[in-house]
């Protein structure tokens, strides 16, 4: 069987490589930089798994329903059931790989995270992503030594090679950024290149490496996008030079409280408005409340995260890195002074359309991690991103291996003619900034038709500019796709809030947004969210979990009915 090409070496890419190696399938792990530089290392708070370690009678079914509810019922319920059922097994596997999860008196412990009433977030202080990536790198190294995985760092994704006859993927073109040479790698392709925060330079918590250009290329080659309008604004971020600094949700999980100064007095607005979950409501709800409170003339515009009540023990044992980071970049000691925070772009729930097996719309191409649309629906719960990447990478690897054994070898054909021009493949920083400013204007926490259409006009204006490069044009098209999806969704749901359509409209829009580009025409359509399979359908044990049924359709309906009533 031919090698499987993995693009991106963060958690999803590493997970895919490990799964393939375990199946004795060779892979090429291709990334612009080493895994230590992947955005996954910035993940702080933890990874969710209903391991029921805290005596709260937790279950994966509850994790599943919290995830679906947090995503306002837009996520594929079967995929989410698969992920949440596998989660405890995956975290146990991470323990076997030696991830130093937090322990107390010899026992692993879990913390509270947003949108969930039970403590199910496993963590390692406030650098969970970093320690997790480190353990996965060590495991991939074993596969490298065994000749199963070959790593190509400092190689950029250039484009997919597609068959002109049937559109099937033949392989991928990559480029050595050190030497400049382009290389064709035949075989299936698993895309794990992360989100598209690069569409908003300087305005997100992500890395400068996640430019979004790989996604823009794949989109321009015909891959369908799903739910791109759902952009997560993390409630607690702060501007630092060149980006936004994340103040982890773990700070609130450990007792941090949001307040505004209303007429000079502290107003803990989240606790007052949402007594049950308070500061741990899902991120979309908190960001929206912060947006509204900051515009209240009585509140002076600023919002603070008060972590002064956290014990010295908590700072030392659970959040030392967070404190050091705030001290360093914001020049404040959060143990003594409330920290001014505001929402910032943090995560993209949508991305490449991927089915339950992580297959994209292009045969032979798979997507996992933040670049794929799976698991999070209209809003992602904290602690589910690393889980989605870890689980999704494994599922994509299995699908790629299974399909390849049926499909056979695509050979070494390189598909269409291809010639790389560095000049044409560059987005100038100034252009990126202008496009980012236009998009951010339209795609804020609160949106409306006027703002979105204004932004769309702005993007079209940029596209008409003489002398723009192909990469700049593709980035514009990706931006246009997000705007058009946001315009077409005439309702408010999760991270997509329209002031001109403030209600949730299940009949019209409990659907997956699909955006495609065919022969230069961009089309937006909606597809029903897959129905939850009947109870009795079983998940197999391939991800290290015992066989167990998924929630029945009736309990799913009850959940939604309950949500309607409370919402």
């Amino acid at each position, binding site marked *: 069987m031919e090698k499987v090409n993995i693009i991106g070496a963060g958690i999803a890419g590493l997970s895919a490589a490990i799964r393939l190696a375990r199946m004795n399938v060779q892979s090429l792990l291709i990334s612009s930089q*080493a895994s230590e*530089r992947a*955005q996954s290392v910035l993940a702080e708070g933890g990874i969710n798994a209903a391991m029921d370690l805290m005596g709260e009678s937790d279950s994966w079914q509850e994790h599943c329903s919290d995830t679906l509810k947090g995503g306002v019922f837009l996520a594929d319920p079967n995929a989410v059931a698969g992920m949440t059922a596998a989660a405890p097994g995956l975290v146990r596997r991470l323990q*076997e790989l030696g991830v130093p999860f937090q*322990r107390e008196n010899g026992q692993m412990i879990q913390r509270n995270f947003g949108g969930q009433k039970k403590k199910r977030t496993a963590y390692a202080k406030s650098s969970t992503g970093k320690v997790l990536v*480190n353990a996965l790198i060590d495991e991939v190294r074993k596969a490298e030594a065994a000749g199963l995985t070959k790593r190509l760092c400092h190689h950029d994704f250039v484009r997919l090679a597609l068959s002109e006859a049937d559109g099937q993927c033949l392989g991928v073109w990559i480029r050595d950024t050190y030497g400049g040479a382009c290389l064709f790698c035949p075989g299936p392709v698993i895309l794990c290149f992360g989100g598209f925060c690069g569409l908003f330079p300087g305005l997100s918590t992500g890395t400068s490496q996640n430019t979004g250009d790989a996604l823009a290329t794949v989109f321009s080659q015909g891959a369908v996008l799903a739910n791109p309008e759902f952009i997560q604004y993390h409630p607690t971020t702060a501007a*630092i030079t060149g*980006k936004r600094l994340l103040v982890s949700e773990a700070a609130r999980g450990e007792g941090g409280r949001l307040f505004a100064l209303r007429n000079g007095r502290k107003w803990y607005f989240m606790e007052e408005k949402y007594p049950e979950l308070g500061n741990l409501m899902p991120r979309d709800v908190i960001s929206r409340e912060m947006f509204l409170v900051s515009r209240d003339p009585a509140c002076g515009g600023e919002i603070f995260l008060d972590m002064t009540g956290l014990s010295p023990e908590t700072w030392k044992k659970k959040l030392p890195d967070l404190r050091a980071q705030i001290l360093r*970049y914001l020049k404040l000691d959060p143990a003594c002074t409330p920290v001014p925070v505001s929402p910032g772009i943090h995560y993209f729930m949508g991305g490449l359309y991927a089915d339950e097996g992580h297959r994209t719309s292009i045969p032979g191409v798979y997507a996992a991690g933040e670049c794929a649309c799976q698991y999070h629906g209209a809003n992602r719960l904290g602690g589910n991103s690393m889980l989605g990447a870890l689980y999704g990478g494994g599922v994509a690897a299995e699908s790629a291996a299974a399909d390849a054994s049926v499909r056979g070898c695509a050979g070494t054909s390189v598909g269409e003619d291809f010639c790389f021009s560095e000049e044409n493949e560059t987005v100038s920083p100034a252009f990126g900034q202008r496009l980012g400013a236009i998009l951010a204007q339209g795609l804020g926490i609160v949106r409306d038709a006027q703002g979105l259409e204004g932004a769309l006009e702005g993007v079209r204006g940029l596209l008409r500019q003489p002398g723009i490069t192909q990469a700049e044009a593709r980035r514009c098209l990706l931006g246009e796709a997000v705007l058009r999806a946001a315009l077409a969704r005439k309702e408010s749901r999760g991270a997509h809030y329209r002031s001109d359509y403030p209600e949730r409209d299940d009949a019209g829009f409990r659907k997956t947004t699909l955006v495609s580009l065919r022969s230069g025409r961009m089309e937006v359509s909606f597809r029903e969210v897959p129905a939850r399979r009947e109870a009795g359908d079983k998940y197999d044990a391939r991800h290290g979990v015992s066989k167990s049924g998924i929630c029945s359709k009736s309990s799913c309906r009850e959940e939604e009915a309950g949500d309607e009533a409370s919402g």
Partner: protein
Amino acid sequence: MKLRAEILRRQAGGEPYLQTFIYEPADEAETAASMLTNLNARKPLRDADGKEASPIRWECSCLQKKCGACAMRINGVPGLACDVKLSACGERIRLEPLRKFPVVADLIVNRDIMRENLIRMHLWLEQDALEPAADQELAYDASRCLQCGICLEVCPNYYGGGPFTGLAAAVPAARVLQLEKRGDGHGSEAERKTGPGKEKPKLFGRLRALTGEKRALPLARAYEKQVFEGCGKSLACRNICPAGIDAGRLLASSNAVAVWKRLRSRKAGRES
């Protein structure tokens, strides 16, 4: 205040040369990384003599000291560009690539050797960790290495291609050695298959006691050869780690597992 930024430039295959740019930081928070970003955003980019210059090549990713991409020599001291404030540099700042690695272009060096060294050292878990590390704090600290190469840059004993792999290999090795210690990873192949804590290992353990020496892990052997024996104890790496990892503590722990314990077991074997 205007700043003279001297940058050591080098195109592929060409000779290095210093090029100076004039830069005015917008605020106190600006770093060497933000300066490079902003210089490259100038169109066209001109040096202090008004000559047009190509964009400065450098690597970055997180911009918050968490990924190690932007390691370079800043005013002669290796550090992360996102960590060095311009306000601390006075009227001039000099940026050069790290010297212990081959230069690709401008400030980019090829650090592939670091990954290759870790493969050479067999740095992975031979068997699943059945128990967590005895010292969780240590395992956590050892997991935080950025693989930036700064500790190798200052080390008088490290050179690319040499046998000594330096602290950049010793830090991640500390986690694995900790775990192998708990799982008694010094066991035989047969024991590894059976897993510790079951009937058979005890038998194998007794056999090992009779023959004297346990079969050491490849990592433990490699650690002894490639870290322990090569380290000249100059302590140059002691306070240079941008992640603030306590190297001394990790080295002491790994030395105990990979060197002293094995030495004792070898001695015991000879004496019996």
